[in-house]
């Protein structure tokens, strides 16, 4: 079967009707389900956090069978993911979609786990370090989308697990953990 990067595509990715928005309700529901799972799987595997509807997201076309998802179909499938709370539209025009293959709450838990595992309970770090610091390498936090990270941190701040503060430069925000 085909691969996109190191992601193994399922067999039905070559099934032409998969790329046509189905009019019959039951069939469509099934189709939507399959697209949801596929997108989330792919994004998690490839650490894709953002999908632009009009951009060349790899899953949206299959050159082997010469098929491409229509704009309408893309929007419908992504909206379905949003509806489940696993994604968010970043704009009213539904052009950019933030994919939460981990929910914000899940990310928060991952951060806490990260903090405990690395003994950072009372320490201070920059936000950037959480994303790309040595401790993060090889973890899920590596390369996490900044927006998502900030949201998770804010969530934790509200719970009193940490405090956010601005640093010396514009993008140098810091975190003081008090886990």
């Amino acid at each position, binding site marked *: 079967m085909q691969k996109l990067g190191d992601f193994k595509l399922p067999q039905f990715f070559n099934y032409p009707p998969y790329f046509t928005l189905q*009019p019959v309700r039951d069939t469509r529901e*099934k189709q939507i*389900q399959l697209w949801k799972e596929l997108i989330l799987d792919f994004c998690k595997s490839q650490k894709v956090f953002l999908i632009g509807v009009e951009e060349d997201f790899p899953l949206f076309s299959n050159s082997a069978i010469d098929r491409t998802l229509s704009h309408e179909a893309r929007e419908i499938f992504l909206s379905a993911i949003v509806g489940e709370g696993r994604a968010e539209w970043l704009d009213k025009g539904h052009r950019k979609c933030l994919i939460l293959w981990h929910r914000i709450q899940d990310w928060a838990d991952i951060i806490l786990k990260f903090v405990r595992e690395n003994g950072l309970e009372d320490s201070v770090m920059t936000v950037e370090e959480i994303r790309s610091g040595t401790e993060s390498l090889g973890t899920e936090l590596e390369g996490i989308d900044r927006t998502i990270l900030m949201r998770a941190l804010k969530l934790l701040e509200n719970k009193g697990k940490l405090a956010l503060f601005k640093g010396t430069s514009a993008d140098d925000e810091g975190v003081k953990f008090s886990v």
Partner: protein
Amino acid sequence: MASESRIGSDGLFNTAEVTTSGRPVLRRNEVECFLLSSVDLDSEDDPPRFASMRSGNLILTTHRLIWIPSSQPNASSLPSSLPLSSITHIFSHKKSIKSMFHSPRIRFQVDSVVVVTVVFRGKGDFDGFLTKLWECWRGRAWEEDEKSESEASSGSGAGTVAQGLYGNDGTVRMVGLAGILRKEQEQWESTDKSLQDAFQDLNALMSKAKEMVSLAEKMRQKLLSAPSSQNGGGDDEEMGSKEEMQQWMLSVGIISPVTKESAGALYHQELSRQLADFVRIPLEQAGGMISLTDMYYHFNRARGTELISPDDLWQACNLWEKFDVPVMLRKFDSGVKVIQNKSHSDEEVMSRIRTLVTKTETLRTGVTASDAALTLKIAPAMAKEHLLSAETKGLLCRDMSPDGLRFYFNLFPEIDPTDLHLVKDIGTYGEWVKATSLLSV
């Protein structure tokens, strides 16, 4: 000369004197003008003023209308006469739809009271008779008699009794052989004249026809606007006559303005049955289902003349639900209307489609409407309807591309969303994978 006994409760008619061979005895100066056979006389009043006189000869003279029964005179039907002088009014002969289909008749009023109807059931010159009746009635020959009689009684010495061929006032008398010959002559002239009139007046005839059509139109409008069942069951007679009216109009060639709610004009009913019979063979040839437009073409081609309109076809098909015919009209979601056998089952077509799309080749490539049409041996439009129907049922799903619309066997139900890579051993999904892997790199 007038006899004493009078017939009828009002004594309307006098008994007419006849000879032994049944010819009427005419009075002085009375001249026979016309003879009509197979005539009934009726009274329109209620209760009738006289017993109706059926099937006799009606003789018009200058002075009287004489009716002589064709069969042997008996007590109930005696030769009778009615003086023209007692006619107070002759109703004008209105040409109506009804009159076209009933025997010709004249109505006139006697003594300002009774209305008599003369119904003419034979084949003769009714119009000629009518003309002559007016002439004689207007001629008022009896007044001349009275005048001459009163002149005679007032004692004028001049010979008052007409002698020879010419009467007192100079008109030609119809007596003797010369009279008979003269009468014949007049008859010929009158016939000739009416023939000439008829031919020359073709325009008048045409305009009459136009009148007829506009009259029929008015009737039609009336029927359209008249409330059909305001009085519920109490108006049976009205309904009956309305139906009659529609039938008359139809036979004249004007289609009844029947709506779908009513029982349907006879025309549509007959057409409906005819169509149901006809439809059988084209249906078989078309594989059990044929579009309405195709049927329109077939039916009219078979008819040759008297083509029916699309609307007629539509109405006729709609009537099928009221009869017990083995065919039915069916409308698809897309709006396409087809005629199909009641016995024709969707199941049968579905199974044929299923067989088609699960073949290895078609698993891989899917089918277009034309492919299906060829394989299923039905018209492409029909094939598309079947494919769409199969899609709605979940048997197929669609693939839209710049190449067009194709249908595939619907694999979606067989794919497990919780395990995207799973392909079960049984099921068409597995077969599809096999079919596609034959070509993949």
